[in-house]
């Protein structure tokens, strides 16, 4: 029972007393500038260490460690596979392909030039969880989906990345690459591990190289032996000019954002998630045709705050009746939840998020010079190769 509760909720709900929860919530909900327990600003991330190409047997790999000691390793392995051509795809003439690029319905277009989502496999291993536990399965789907769905529109300047990652995996009509992304969390999850795993996967994909193709057109694929000639899965900027990276297609990054009261907080730690009104996983990616970031997906994550123990106001507490007989607490209305609350007493959150909050989160992530851009720039700065 306890294990199930852990797996389904945003993280293990640590035992936290109602007084602590109330203190944390009111600190984080202070209008204007939240006071986080570790003194960070609302948009500040914990410092992390990152390196790439650490596993020699893989096409690309990365290791990221947070300052709190949690570490993740990601290895990307590519394999050539024969494309299964479905019967109707064979019958359909060439013209339908353009439709598929426009409205991508995934299942029917096997074998077309746009690729298929199942060519990317992701497995996540978290200590203490089985492979088929809810948390690893949910996390891997949450990270795989934006990865394969982040399709850039056709006719962009960068010919190689047409059709996004799926399109990049196509070798020719009969052959394609299959990507295995293995994510390994090395330490016990201190907080919800999604941001760590997502950043690591992003770095690993950035450093992923595929052998250079020598064969042409519809021939059976034949590759260059020389690993030095291999090409990056996501093309790196060839010139060192600083303006170019913004034009490159990049794998998506999933950021964990929580809202507490009117405040929006990035990279929350375990205690902050425990009091959050809402927990959202926002996936962003960089598109090749515009300077702006593109929002790929938003998912709500079950906030653990609803499972917490409620506090007992002094007026209802048998053991404190004597002290508060005179002073009646006036219940006030919490503006963000619309519930009546006694100040200083913790009430578990009921969930639900306002549209304006989601809109503010999206704006903060996507805006020029916003959090999303800074994160992607930071990741771009990591030495690859």
């Amino acid at each position: 029972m306890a294990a199930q509760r852990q797996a389904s909720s945003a993280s293990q709900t640590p035992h936290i007393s109602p007084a602590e929860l109330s203190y944390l919530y009111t600190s984080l909900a202070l209008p204007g500038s939240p006071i986080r327990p570790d003194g960070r600003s609302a948009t500040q991330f914990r410092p992390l260490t990152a390196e790439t190409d650490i596993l020699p047997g893989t096409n690309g790999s990365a290791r990221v460690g947070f300052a709190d000691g949690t570490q993740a390793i990601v290895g990307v392995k590519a394999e050539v596979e024969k494309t299964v051509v479905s019967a109707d795809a064979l019958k359909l003439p060439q013209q339908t392909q353009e439709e598929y690029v426009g409205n991508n319905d995934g299942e029917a277009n096997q074998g077309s030039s746009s690729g298929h989502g199942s060519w990317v496999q992701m497995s996540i291993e978290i200590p203490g969880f089985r492979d088929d536990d809810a948390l690893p399965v949910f996390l891997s789907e949450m990270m795989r989906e934006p990865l394969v769905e982040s399709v850039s529109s056709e006719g962009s300047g960068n010919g190689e990345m047409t059709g996004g990652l799926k399109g990049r995996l196509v070798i020719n009509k009969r052959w394609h690459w299959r990507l295995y992304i293995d994510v390994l969390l090395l330490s016990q999850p201190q907080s919800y591990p999604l941001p760590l795993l997502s950043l690591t996967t992003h770095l690993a994909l950035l450093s992923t190289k595929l052998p250079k193709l020598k064969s042409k057109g519809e021939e059976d694929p034949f590759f260059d032996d020389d690993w030095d000639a291999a090409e990056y899965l996501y093309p790196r900027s060839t010139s060192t000019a600083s303006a170019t990276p913004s034009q490159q297609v990049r794998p998506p990054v999933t950021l964990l954002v929580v809202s507490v009261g009117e405040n929006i907080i990035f990279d929350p730690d375990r205690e902050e998630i425990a009091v959050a009104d809402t927990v959202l996983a926002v996936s962003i990616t960089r598109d090749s045709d515009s300077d702006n970031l593109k929002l790929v997906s938003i998912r709500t994550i079950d906030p653990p705050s609803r499972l917490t123990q409620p506090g007992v106001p002094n007026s209802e507490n048998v053991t404190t009746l004597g002290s508060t007989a005179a002073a009646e607490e006036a219940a006030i209305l919490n503006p963000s939840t619309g519930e009546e609350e006694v100040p200083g007493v913790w009430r578990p959150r009921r969930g639900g998020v306002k549209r304006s909050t989601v809109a503010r989160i999206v704006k903060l992530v996507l805006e020029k010079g916003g959090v999303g851009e800074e994160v992607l720039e930071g990741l771009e700065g990591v030495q690859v190769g």
Partner: protein
Amino acid sequence: MAITILPPVVDHVDICPSDSDMDSMSVDSDGGVDLATGRTSRPSKRPRLVEGTDITSGVVTPGEIVTDDPQWMRGHGTYINPLSTSIIATVAGTVQKTNKLLSVQPLRARYTPEIGDLVVGRIVEVQSRRWKVDVAAPLLAQLPLSAINLPGGILRRRTSADELQIRTFFSEGDLVVAEVQTVHSDGAASLHTRSLKYGKLRNGVFLAVTGTGGSGASSSMVKGGVGSGPIPAGAMGASGTGGVVRSRRQVWTVNTANGGGDVDVILGVNGYIWISKHADDTAAACSTTDSVSITRMEEMVSSSIYSSQNDDIPPQTRREIARLAQCIRVLVQGGVRVDEENVMSAYEASLQVDLEVGDDDDDDDDDRRREGREYLEGNKARRILELVLERN
């Protein structure tokens, strides 16, 4: 700057000086991988604790032979196979020698309760007549219903009515500050809160400190350092014996800067720490009840000990509480002992560092930069540690 990404730090592994190593290294290197010599050659690569003996200094790992010499007696953290004379380490830590007694001080250990320790604990289980409390010891401590104060300070036998409403006193997840009353033969502790300074905790933040807690550090560091003599900075950082140790004052009040008011710090010997707004007992009682007579004062105080409702805490106090918590984190990361003296000097150092940084920042009014200023990491943490060690 939202995110800082650093290159990985390579740990410098050069414990052994290379003077005596040359010959043994060369023997190993030409032989390739040789499993048979691995066990015997390992101690020979280490520097000696005592000249002329074969006791290794530095860190030993569990199962490693500390010495073969029969003249030594085994102490804590070691083991002797009945058929041999070699002393084997059972914990990872440093070898210590007291006359002819060899013991291994663990690098990290759980807290071993001792009678009279002030501990902060978290209720994890409620049973019919007692609570089970997590105090970071190997076994859960117990807090019997008969070992707490009843609200209002009434002295009477605990009835079945008290047992039924046991959760109104403490329920799961609540934090308590208590004292170790007895230690049972299996090492489990029994706690009591029969004092006005003990009881439920509110109005603050909790942090659990890693380190040796009370056990490992108590014998090695405190005995040397209880007179608060100067401790070499290198030894402190290298041995990594941070964490809370038993000292004279585990609870004190800080008069914080920046209008934060008074803040209480409770350092549980078990490594659990509570930092909260100072509850001026009489003032608190007066604020909750408008008309309180002087004869009922004591009753008031003791009846608010089971409240789980926080007082109104101004943002300035919250900032300073967060700062104190970070100072303790910095100390722990730096492997510095957490006690009143070090915490206070770290706090002052953090204020000083803030001033230094503040001077540079005054030119540009970048809001974003200003906001994250309270986060102590990297350079700031290093500077604070330097200042703390300077003062000692």
